């Protein structure tokens, strides 16, 4: 499945400072769909190059990270259970505090 993954708010520093990643992610074996829980595992394995604890905590993203699927907060689409579709855009962004 072709997806666009974007990292911002400093999370790009965990992926060699690259913000936009056009990736191809396979369905889990035996599964008929790809959900956000699968994608998080894939991202952690394939894109996060350092300090994975700054990206995840337990089986979800760490506190202070917003996840957006097609410009919409994943809390509105089922969080970890959100089903992904071909060409979806998923944004991971860390909240900023500076000023």
């Amino acid at each position, binding site marked *: 499945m072709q997806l666009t993954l974007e990292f911002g708010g*400093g999370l790009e520093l965990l992926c060699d400072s690259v913000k936009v990643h056009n990736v191809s992610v396979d369905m889990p074996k035996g599964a008929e769909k790809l959900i956000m829980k699968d994608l998080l595992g894939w991202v952690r394995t394939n894109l996060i190059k350092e300090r994975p604890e700054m990206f995840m905590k337990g089986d979800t993203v760490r506190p202070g990270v917003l996840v957006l699927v097609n410009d919409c907060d994943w809390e*509105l689409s089922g969080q970890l259970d959100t089903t992904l579709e071909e060409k979806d855009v998923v944004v991971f962004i860390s*909240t900023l505090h*500076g*000023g």
Partner: protein
Amino acid sequence: ITAVHHDLTPEMIHRYSRHLLLPSFGVKAQSNLINSSILVVGAGGLGSPALLYLAACGAGRLGIVDHDVVELNNMHRQVIHTEAFIGQPKVKSAATTCRSINSSVQIVEHHEALRTSNALEIFNQYDVIVDATDNAPSRYMISDCCVLLGKPLVSGAALGLEGQLTVYNYNGGPCYRCLFPTPPPTAACQRCADSGVLGVVPGIIGCLQALEAIKIASAVGEPLSGRMLLFDALAARIRIVKIRGRSPQCEACGENATFTQQQFQEFDYEKFTQSPLTPSPLKLKLL
């Protein structure tokens, strides 16, 4: 322009004529603005442009909270301060500039750090709160205080070459804790002083904060509630995304929330976020 009952003096009619000409703003919205009060917490990178435009537009009463003094390394982004005020309180410097561009606005100087001990009393005096601070504990404290008092909160942030903006606790929308119930790890809470910021980035976000505060105070347009603006200055990209609504489980604003003013005054935001409210300055070494 037709006859409408209003509180505008002839001087105001002249000064704000370009607002009064606007069919979607006009005398009604300008009167609302002149009868409103807005508090800006922080007279730094975000607060500088926010205060300049809130003073210029004719908000009736404009409060400034800050405990800091103007330093040379602020001046690349904090454009409300002049070199003549280096070493002096930011509140005094910002108030002086605001008065110099619009003497008809009442400027209130709160020269103190915002704390749980004074936040309720200060916020109570204003209709709209603008969060222009630079650290995580202040953001939780300001949001909680706004929930307790039912005040809309215009929240901006900038770091490096990115900025973020949203409106909290407005018209049934989410509060800061609805989005971030658990504080981030300390290592994720970088400030401009530690990590740097391109000066014009808080400039852009601070202007957008002024716009949202003006829209709320004058009751025009659709404030950025339930939505968040994400700005990437280097790529020149902006996303406006849909965020969650008010969380029924929120400890501050949820259905069963029991957070009281008393508890607020006793809450330790520094311990909660494991970050100081007023961090010590960084010393830069450069060869």
